[in-house]
């Protein structure tokens, strides 16, 4: 019997909803004016402080580049994927990342949108994901395998980034206790 060939799911667009997935082409563009701001004045003051830290314009014009937008959102405690960032920025071209600027008022709806996304990933999500690599079911994964995955799958990390993340996590056998690892990652 010929095996029924199932359509191979593309790595970038699995059906599972939990972690924020990169948007498919058919999704409507992000419209900042459609976002209602629900931040308190206190929060907005906090954001301003951080915004200013990232502002590198000559006269402190309170503007940041597109490229900094993701970093600022992350610095404020969210953890969007790169794809989500690209989406809320309106899918900018690579050169736009350096050249186009956002002021604080443009930033707020973008930040609000990301804040509303309820899919930050829980401890269990992490552990479940890592368990996939736990060949022996003993709570450890091979560091080398994890490095490989992080550098080749999903929103790939560079080698030096992987190195930085994994520094001093592996024991003498190159294994990582992944529950501890997840706690360590989430502790920031």
């Amino acid at each position, binding site marked *: *019997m*010929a*095996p*029924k060939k*199932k359509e*191979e*799911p593309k*790595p970038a667009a*699995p*059906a*599972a909803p*939990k*972690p924020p997935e990169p948007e498919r082409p058919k999704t409507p563009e992000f419209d900042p004016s459609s976002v209602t701001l629900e931040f308190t004045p*206190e929060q907005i003051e906090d954001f301003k*402080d*951080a915004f200013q*830290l*990232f502002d*590198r*314009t*000559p*006269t402190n014009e309170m503007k940041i580049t597109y*490229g*900094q937008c*993701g*970093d*600022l959102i*992350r*610095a404020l*405690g969210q*953890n*969007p*994927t790169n794809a989500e960032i*690209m989406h809320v920025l309106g899918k900018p071209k690579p050169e736009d*990342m*350096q050249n186009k600027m956002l002021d604080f008022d443009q930033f707020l709806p973008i930040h609000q949108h990301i804040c509303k996304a309820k899919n930050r*990933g829980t401890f269990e*999500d*992490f552990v*479940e*994901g890592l368990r*996939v*690599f736990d060949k022996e079911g003993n709570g450890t994964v091979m560091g080398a395998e994890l490095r490989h*995955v*992080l550098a080749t*799958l*999903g*929103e*790939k990390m*560079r080698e*030096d*980034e992987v190195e*930085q*993340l994994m*520094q*001093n996590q592996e024991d003498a056998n190159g294994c990582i206790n992944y529950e501890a690892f997840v706690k*360590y*990652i989430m*502790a*920031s």
Partner: protein
Amino acid sequence: MGCGVSKSSQFNRNSRKAVTTIRAAILIQRWYRQYVARTEMRRRYTWHIFQSIEYSGEQAQIKLYNFLGYLMDNFTPSSSERNLISHIFREHEVCLDAEWERYFCYKNIEVPEVYSGPHLTFPLTVEQAVGLLEAFRNKKQLHSRYVLQLLLETWKLLRMFPNINRISTCQSKEITICGDLHGQLEDLLLIFYKNGVPSLERPYVFNGDFVDRGKDSIEILLILFSFLLVYPCDVYLNRGNHEDHLINLRYGFTKEVLTKYKIHGKRILKLLQKIFSWLPLATVIDQKVLVLHGGISDTTDLSVLPRVDRHNYISALRPPKKRNNSSAGVSVDTDTEDYVWNNSRIYQRRASFSCPKPLGPRDCFQNRSLQDFSGRIKVKMEDELERSRRRESLFQTAVNRSEKDLLSTSTSTDSISSDNAKEEWRLILDLLWSDPMNQDGCVPNEVRGGGCYWGPDVTEDFLSRHNMQLIIRSHECKQEGYEFCHNRKVLTLFSASNYYDVGSNRGAYVKLGPDLVPYVIQYQATSLTRELTARQSIGRTERSALKVLREQLFAHKSDLICAFKKFDPGNTGFLSLNNWASAVESVMHLNLPWRTLFSQLVSKSNNGMVDYHDWFNELAIKGTNTDHIEQSLLETLYRHRSTVETIFRIVDTDNSGFITVEDFRKTWKLLSVYLKMEITDEDISNLAVTIDSNHDGSIDIDEFMEAFRLTDKKSRLERGRSMFMVTTSDLTKMEGDPNV
């Protein structure tokens, strides 16, 4: 078929597994990127903290000098206070060289048998220079006899150099350029290790700020000078703003020399003063690349620079001319001068001359010309100040001109000479103190207190006027050790890694070949950095910065409480976060992100309200055994610790590390005016009690300052949070999002 079915289900399992794997990867990647961004933010505000405090220290030093200059101009020559400080203004001594050679003579200094350091013979050979390097690496100290000898040879050599070094990359030589070293020997050793020592094939340019802050300033100087002596055509030194004895008083070089060379330190320092003044001011490579320490201004003209007698500017911190806010580059001191001028009960205006009587044959002549001026003195204070400045600058230029010249020029060209002197002074100040800015224009550098901020348009104009293509400068610490700006026409180069603290920044040097394209090499010294895991490195620097910041906050307690009360009219003792931040910035003027720092500085808050009285207890800063000293005096002392110490060192005219009790009293009178505080004799006695004086009638400066060192009772950042922060020194900049 079973095989097919199982394959299919196997396939499903695999694809599910793949999905989960990818999800997991994405999750981890997201979290990682968030962590990196947060770390970057911490790194930035840590940087801000260090930099604001450093620059405000420089500003304080300039203010102090300006204040002392004013005092100098308004005392009679016989005044005792004047004697305390006059020697630092003796920039125009007219000793003949022969007298100086006698003074600096090293020949009588015996080198004891037990001395295990290097012995130098002159003329110096490269083997000896390398030997010196090795000796310093092994923590040996060069004997003062050889130090003086080496410095004398250097002095003689430097006097032959022009103001601007001119070198070329012909013969395919690559030139290596290094930025600030600030007494950090490890960095220099690292550079020589990576790049090789200077040689005929390997020319070097060192761009100033060799001394201060680090602990091996004298060793760095000795190494640089020894290679200079061996390869005078292949080693080029530019003067930096820290090659200045007045700055050295505050930033540690003076103290280092006096500590290491207890007997001959004073002479060594004096000789170094001369050497610093003879250091060239800039280097030009292939007529296209300008290398200098600070920067330029809109009035910098390299065709004017060669004519300047650079050695007249022993310190670049000349007293300012009449206050003139609009002219760029003139350093302005406001508050102190205003205060002193307004409260001139203590300092009567006299017909005084700022220059003590010179020695030598020009004596009588000089008196005559000065007396000519005295008859025309007007009563208005500002004019008098201006006149004494003119006289001083006139006298300065007179030293180097013939008597005839001076006679003919004294009356008619009075204003021209003084203008010239003013222009020259500004030129040098700009070269050594300026910083680039991103916006067009040229404005006074009020943060540092000297030089200016210059914009990309000024760079463009300067480069096209001089037909050049690049400016390489130093003067500012950069996280990566270097930074381009002004459309890559200006390169800032900083070679002291870990400058603010371990892990704070890398150092860099540049190689320039005939194509004149700068090739940057970065490094980070100390094995300690490598041993620290990435996670600990940023945490350390941050802890260090916060500690410094907490001390500053504590030192401003009274002013802060005052500001807090303004925001708390009902006197509840509580403030909202917003108000706390506004109040703190209004007092500290450091332009820091206080809200972001809030959680690091204030651990307890009820519903976002700060109990501000309690907060000071929480800061938990304590000095040693100072209960008998009145509170506000104590606070003033904490705040102005550096200034207090600097003044002591100035007063310590023989650089012995001790001052007499009598001078101690006089110093406090001086300080009481400068720091605008009341200080009674009883206060002074109480202060004296603090010191454990082992010697009758004299006070050990170091011990005194030790008593006012602030200590941090609790270690604030031993929280779990900071321990998990991970970073490496390879963390790339976040701009230019690498994730795209």
